[in-house]
């Protein structure tokens, strides 16, 4: 039995394959102007929205829809301070918000705005007890509901948890999405980098004022350098002829590069008291004059985590369910990454419809 050349040494490229690769490369290069056109016309945000309230730099967006309201309790989405909130409504088919809007929930999204140098002294109390409280009150008064549903993503989830503990009387259901609350696991990469022995957050804030967007973006990229700085571009090259892929790719890149700084004092307090000292889960975190006691959260809780999350691994979020006083609590550990939880095809097909069901049952 004869063994042919490529079977014997499969890693070697045959002349036919070389020609095929060259043709493929030429086709992709010919498609490059089309890709640039897609990049130019890419739009983010799938669901129409209107700003219904402003306070300093924040805007409260309400999603506009023709769908008849089917639920009495409105939903407020609270995003992190480190990026823009439109990741939750990135594109048609990749929009968390559209699931709720299409199911008849009156949905609001909190856009914190971009802090300037003058906002460097805004701390946790300003954000949680000031801004978030004002926005919750605004939604309550607009919809004439005593209690509202809150969905917090990432750092916005941690802030939502703090708020729910301080104002349980205003929250009907709480959904956390990849929200860190327990930083006791010091093996997690970001915990190692932000350890007090390595990272002097006081000095950083003293020198820079706000946490620079570039520093945050660079740190997040460095968590998975091969994937974010190399592999991604190979995937891009391979799919250069796929217009749908390009639209999603450029929409995601737009969001990833649309970084904003975080107000200095808020960043300092979050890193120091939450990430370094882990006070939140221990019930020792103080906001203003009050202690944040998670046991005071008695509303139904849904805790969503992503198995492949490198930014907020599930072990940072899951202890939340044991720390709250609620009896109706559930967690879903979904096979996705940190961003995939919001924009992943599988998450949009399987996870979010079930989250809508969960919320509808508790309306």
């Amino acid at each position, binding site marked *: 039995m004869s063994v042919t050349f490529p079977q014997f040494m499969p890693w070697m490229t045959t002349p036919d*394959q070389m020609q095929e690769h060259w043709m493929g490369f030429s086709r992709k290069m010919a498609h490059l102007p089309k890709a640039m056109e897609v990049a130019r016309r890419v739009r983010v945000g799938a669901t129409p929205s209107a700003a*219904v309230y402003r306070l300093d730099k924040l805007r409260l967006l309400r999603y506009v829809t023709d769908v008849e309201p089917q639920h009495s309790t409105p939903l407020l989405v609270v995003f992190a301070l480190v990026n823009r909130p439109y990741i939750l409504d990135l594109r048609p088919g990749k929009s968390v918000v559209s699931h709720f809007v299409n199911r008849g929930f009156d949905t609001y999204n909190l856009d914190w705005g971009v802090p300037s140098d003058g906002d460097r002294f805004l701390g946790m109390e300003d954000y949680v*007890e000031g801004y978030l409280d004002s926005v919750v009150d605004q939604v309550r008064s607009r919809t004439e509901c005593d209690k509202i549903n809150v969905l917090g993503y990432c750092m916005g989830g941690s802030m939502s948890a703090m708020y729910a503990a301080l104002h349980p009387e205003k929250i009907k259901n709480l959904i956390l999405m990849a929200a860190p609350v327990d930083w006791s696991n010091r093996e997690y*990469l970001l915990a190692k980098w932000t350890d007090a022995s390595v*990272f002097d957050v006081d000095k950083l804030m003293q020198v820079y004022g706000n946490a620079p967007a570039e520093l945050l973006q660079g740190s997040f990229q460095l968590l998975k350098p091969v994937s974010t700085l190399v592999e991604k571009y190979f995937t891009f090259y391979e799919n250069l002829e796929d217009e749908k892929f390009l639209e999603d790719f450029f929409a995601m890149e737009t969001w990833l590069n649309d970084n904003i700084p975080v107000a200095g004092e808020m960043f300092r307090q979050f890193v120091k008291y939450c990430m370094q000292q882990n006070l939140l889960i221990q019930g020792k975190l103080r906001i203003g004059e009050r202690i944040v006691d998670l046991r005071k959260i008695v509303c139904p809780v849904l805790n969503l985590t992503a198995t492949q999350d490198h930014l907020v691994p599930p072990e940072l979020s899951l202890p939340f369910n044991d720390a709250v006083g609620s009896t109706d609590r559930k967690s879903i550990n979904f096979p996705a990454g940190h961003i995939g939880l919001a924009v992943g095809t599988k998450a949009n097909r399987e996870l979010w419809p079930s989250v809508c069901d969960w919320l509808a049952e508790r309306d």
Partner: protein
Amino acid sequence: MGQYDANDSGATSDPFSRFWVDLMSKMSSAPFAPSASQMQDDAMKRTRQAFFDAWAQHCDEFLRSDAFLDVLKKSMDSALAFKQELNEFMTKALHDQQMPARSDTDSILVVLRSMEDRVLERIDRLSHRVDALESSVSGASPDAASGKRRPKGVPQ
């Protein structure tokens, strides 16, 4: 392929050698994993993926290492020291030209914020007094809810 075992006494201790041996063994075995019919089409992709996986794994190991954390700390300390000197130089240069620097606007902001706190505390106290007066007139219990920490925004 098995993962590198740091406790294996037979393994080399040099990080680059470990990376290289692991990488090469993964890459060489990757094309043979599935059936022979798929080999030609997928061999390159699987080899490349194996390369990326090995690279990512060793990057992760490096990013957790004491050596990297030490470099991270030293580079941040140096960058912050440089930025601080730059800030001080800029402040001095601006002051020499009788212009305000960032430290001056910061001072104003601090004054404004403490003034805001004092005004809000005063309003809170007045609000409680008004509540108490109203309740004494109407006979109802005073609303214990405290005032807002920050002023209300603008409904659109």
